[in-house]
C-alpha cells in the first residue's frame, strides 16, 4: 500500500473548532460516566449536591426526596425534589442546558459543585443514552410554576427547549424537581447509591433525606436544626497565585495603582504589606497596573511571594465543625468512643482549605479489619479512586501504632475504628473531573495527617484510660482470688490460724488497691 504524504497545506485545511459540549460528550468518563454503575451514582450525586447547595445558600433546612426506579433492565428513572429556592423561569434553560455556565467558577468560595458541569453533564448523559429530555419543575415561591422539557444542542453548546409552560397556579411553594431517564446499573455495595446516601446523611445531619430506591424506602432523619455557617466569598491569597494568573489580574483590575491593586484584589494584604511588596520589588506603588511590563511583573510577583502575610480568613470556609461531625458519626456508627478535630485553615495555590477528621472507635466495630475510611470533600462523599486520593494516602502514612491501632508498613491501620476526613476548600484540587480523588499535594497530606494525629491522640487517651481502669479492676480481683489459696496453704504448712491470715491480707489488699473488696 502506498500512501501519499500530506503537506502542511493539506493538514491545515483539516483544522476545525469544536464545542465544549462535543468534547465532554466524547469524553464523558471525565465527568464520571465511565460505566452504567458509576453513571447512576454520578447522576444521584449531582442531584443531591445541587439540592444541598441551593438550600444552604438560601439558608433553608434541606428536605430532599430522591427516587431511583428501574424502567427497563438497563434504564432508570431518577428524580430529585427539594425545598430549595427554586430557579427563575427564564434562567432555567441556560443554567441546565449549557456547559461551563455557572455561578462559582471565578469565585473563591467553598461549595459542592463548582465548575458548571454537574447537572448539565447528567442532562447530556441522559440524552446520549436514552435520547430523552430532562423534565424540570420549579417555583421560586411566587405562586407560579415552571415546567420544562430540556435537551442540549451539542454542536452549539446551547439549550434546546422541547416544551415549556409557566403557569400561575397560586401554589405557594419553592423548590426544584428534576427527573430524567438514563442508562444505568444499580448495585448495593460499598461504592453504590445506598452507601453514598448514608455518608451524605452522616456529613449533612441538618438535612432530612428520603431515598426511595429499587429495594424500598429509607429515611434519614435530620439530627440537628442548626445549619453550618454559609461560606463567604474571598479574594485570592497572594501565596497561591501563579505568575500567569497574576499577569492577567494586573491587566484586568479596576484599581488605579499597584498599591490599591494589592489591597483590593487580594485578601490579607493591607496598606503596609502592599507598600512593603512594592518596596522590595523596587517599584513605585503609585504607578498604574496596566503600565507594568513583563520584567516588572516578575519582580512584583517574587516580592509578593516573600511578603509576610496572615493566612487567609477561616470564615470563608464552612467546615462541618466538631459537634456536627460527632453527631453524624454517633447517629450512624455503633462505636463506644468518638473524636472529631477541625484544623485551622491552611492555604494551597491561593485557595484556603481546611481539614477535619473524625474517628469512631470500639463498640460493635470489627476487631481485626482494615479501618474503613469515609472521604468527604466539601461535604460530598467520595466513592471511587480511593487509592489515588490524598485522604487515603494520608491515613496510610500516619503512624497509627502510636495511637493503639495495628498497622503493617504504610498500609491502612487495622482495628475497631472508622476514620472520616473532610476536606473543605474554595477550590478542591481533584485528580480528575469526575471529582473522586483529591490530589496529593504535600501541604494537603500534611494537614490531613495533623488532623488525624490529633484525633488519634484523643482516641489513644481514651484507649489507655480504659485500659488503666480495667487494669485496676483486674488487680483488685486478682488479689481477692488468691488470698484464700495463700491463707489455706500457709495454714497447712504452719498450722497458723487461717481466718486471721485471710483477714490481715484482705485489709492490706484494700489499702493497696484503694478499692474496697468483698469477702
Amino acid at each position, binding site marked *: 500500500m502506498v500512501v501519499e504524504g500530506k503537506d502542511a497545506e493539506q493538514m491545515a485545511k483539516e483544522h476545525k473548532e469544536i464545542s465544549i459540549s462535543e468534547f465532554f460528550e466524547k469524553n464523558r468518563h471525565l465527568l464520571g460516566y465511565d460505566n452504567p454503575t458509576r453513571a447512576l451514582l454520578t447522576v444521584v450525586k449531582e442531584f443531591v449536591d445541587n439540592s444541598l447547595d441551593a438550600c444552604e445558600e438560601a439558608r433553608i433546612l434541606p428536605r430532599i426526596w430522591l427516587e431511583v426506579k428501574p424502567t427497563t433492565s438497563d434504564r432508570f428513572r431518577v428524580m430529585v425534589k427539594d425545598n430549595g429556592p427554586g430557579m427563575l423561569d427564564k434562567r432555567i434553560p441556560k443554567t441546565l442546558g449549557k456547559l461551563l455556565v455557572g455561578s462559582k467558577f471565578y469565585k473563591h468560595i467553598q461549595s459542592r459543585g463548582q465548575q458548571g458541569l454537574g447537572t448539565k453533564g447528567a442532562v447530556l448523559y441522559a440524552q446520549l443514552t436514552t435520547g430523552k429530555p430532562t423534565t424540570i419543575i420549579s417555583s421560586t415561591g411566587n405562586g407560579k410554576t415552571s415546567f420544562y422539557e430540556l435537551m442540549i444542542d451539542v454542536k452549539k453548546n446551547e439549550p434546546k427547549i422541547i416544551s415549556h409552560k409557566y403557569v400561575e397556579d397560586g401554589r405557594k411553594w419553592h423548590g426544584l424537581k428534576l427527573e430524567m431517564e438514563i442508562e444505568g446499573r444499580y448495585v448495593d455495595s460499598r461504592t453504590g447509591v445506598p452507601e453514598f446516601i448514608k455518608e451524605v446523611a452522616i456529613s449533612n445531619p441538618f438535612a432530612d433525606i428520603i431515598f426511595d430506591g429499587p429495594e424500598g424506602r429509607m429515611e434519614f432523619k435530620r439530627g440537628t436544626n442548626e445549619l453550618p455557617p454559609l461560606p463567604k466569598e474571598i479574594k485570592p491569597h497572594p501565596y497561591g497565585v501563579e505568575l500567569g494568573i497574576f499577569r492577567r489580574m494586573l491587566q484586568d483590575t479596576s484599581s488605579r495603582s499597584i498599591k490599591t491593586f494589592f489591597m483590593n484584589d487580594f485578601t490579607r494584604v493591607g496598606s503596609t504589606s502592599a507598600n512593603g511588596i512594592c518596596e522590595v520589588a523596587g517599584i513605585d506603588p503609585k504607578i498604574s497596573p496596566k503600565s507594568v511590563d513583563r520584567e516588572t511583573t516578575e519582580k512584583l510577583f517574587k516580592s509578593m511571594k516573600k511578603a509576610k502575610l496572615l493566612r487567609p480568613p477561616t470564615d470563608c470556609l464552612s467546615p462541618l465543625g466538631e459537634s456536627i461531625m460527632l453527631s453524624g458519626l454517633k447517629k450512624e456508627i455503633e462505636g463506644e468512643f468518638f473524636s472529631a478535630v477541625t484544623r485551622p485553615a491552611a492555604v494551597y495555590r491561593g485557595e484556603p482549605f481546611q481539614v477535619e477528621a473524625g474517628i469512631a472507635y470500639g463498640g460493635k466495630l470489627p476487631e481485626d479489619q482494615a479501618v474503613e475510611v469515609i472521604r468527604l470533600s466539601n461535604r460530598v462523599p467520595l466513592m471511587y479512586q480511593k487509592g489515588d486520593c490524598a485522604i487515603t494516602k494520608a491515613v496510610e502514612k500516619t503512624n497509627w501504632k502510636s495511637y493503639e491501632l495495628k498497622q503493617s508498613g504504610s498500609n491502612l491501620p487495622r482495628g475497631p475504628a472508622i476514620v472520616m476526613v473532610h476536606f473543605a476548600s474554595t477550590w478542591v484540587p481533584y485528580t480528575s473531573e469526575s471529582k473522586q480523588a483529591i490530589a496529593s499535594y504535600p501541604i494537603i497530606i500534611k494537614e490531613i495527617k495533623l488532623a488525624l494525629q490529633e484525633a488519634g491522640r484523643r482516641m489513644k487517651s481514651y484507649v489507655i484510660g480504659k485500659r488503666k481502669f480495667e*487494669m485496676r479492676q*483486674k*488487680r483488685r480481683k*486478682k*488479689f481477692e*482470688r*488468691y488470698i*484464700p*489459696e*495463700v491463707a489455706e*496453704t*500457709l495454714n*497447712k*504448712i*504452719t498450722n*497458723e490460724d487461717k481466718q*486471721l*491470715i485471710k483477714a*490481715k*491480707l484482705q*485489709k*492490706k*489488699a484494700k489499702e*493497696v488497691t484503694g478499692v474496697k473488696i468483698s469477702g
Partner: protein
Amino acid sequence: MVKKRGENTSKKIFEFAEGIVEQIKEEKKPKMKIPVRSLSNVEWSEDKGVLTLGNKKSNRYFFNVGHARKFMQTLLIASFCKDIVDENIHASIRDMYYNLKHSIGDSKENTFEEQSESDPLIVDIETALNLLREQLHLLADRKGVVVGNVKVRDRGDVIDWSKLGSGGWSIPSVVEDIEFVDVDADFALVIEKNAGFERLHEDKFWRDYNCILMGTGGQPARGTRRLIRRLAEEHKIPIYVLTDSDSYGWYIYSVIKSGSMALAHASDKLATPSAKFIGLTITDIMEYKLEKSIIRANDRDIKRAKEMLDYPWFQEKEWRRELKLMIDKRIKAEIEALSSRGLKFLTDTYLPEKLDKKEFLP
C-alpha cells in the same frame, strides 16, 4: 540418712512459711526472697572449678500484680514438697503439676494452667531454701545407662554392672542413696551418644580397658551427673568425656565438668571438675581424615561457640583454639563420623590412641 535429709527439708519449708506468716501478722506487704538466677548472678569459682550462684536476691511480693500468682504458686509447691517428704515418697514434676492443679474459688482460673508454670518455681524453692530437687523428693526423667566392673547396692539389691548382657543399668533419677559395694575401674568413659555406647558395649571395650561405660543420651540427666560426681569424688575414678565435635557436645562436657548456669546452685553436687575431654575435637577431624563426614555448622552452633569463647571456664588455650577453628571453618562432626573410617575405628583406633597418648583437653 534418708530420714535426716527429710527432716531438714521439712523444717526449712516450715520456717520459710512461718516467715511469711510473721510478715502478714505485722501487716507488712508479704514478700519472699528468691536468689536471682540470671547470668548476672552466676559466678565462676576459679577455686572449685565450677559455676556457683552469687548472693543477689530479688523480692517476690504478694501485692504486686506481676508477682501475686507466682507467690501463691510458690507456696503451693512448697507445701506439696513438705507433704511428700513427710510421707517419704517421690513424685515426678508432672505428677506434682496435676496434683496441685485446681480451680481457684469459683473462678475459671486454675492454680496452674501449664506445667511450664510450675517447673521454674521448683528451682526457686531449691535455691531459696538451699535444697536440691532430690531433697524435695521430686524426680526428673530417668535417662542414661551404665556398664562396667562395678557393684552397687540400691534399695537392698546388689547390682553388678558387669552382668547385664547387652543391656545396662538404667540410671535412676535419685542416686543419692546408692551404695558402692565394689568399684574396679581405671576410668569412666562418658559418651554423649547412645550409638557410641552400643558400639563400645558390643565391642566389650569396658572389659578390655577395665573401665566404666556411661551413655548419657544427650545432655545428661541430674541422676547421671550426680553418679559421675560420686564416682569421681568417692572413688577417685578419672572421668573422660566423649561428645560430638560441636559447640553443643562441648557444652555437654562443660556441664558435666563445671555445672550449668541454670543449676549453678547445685554445682557442688552435680559438677565434676576433675573430668577431662577425650574427643571429638575439630583437630581430630583433620588428623583422622573425617572431612567427608563433616556437617556445616549452622548459625545457632556458631552463636553458641562465640558465647562459649566468653565463658570464664572456657579460657584454656586448647579450647579457645578449638572454638575458633569451629567458628572460622564453620564445621562440626558427630561421633558417628568415625564410622566413615570403619565401624570399629572408634573402638580399635581412636580411643586406644587417645588413651595411650593421654591426649585430653582440660
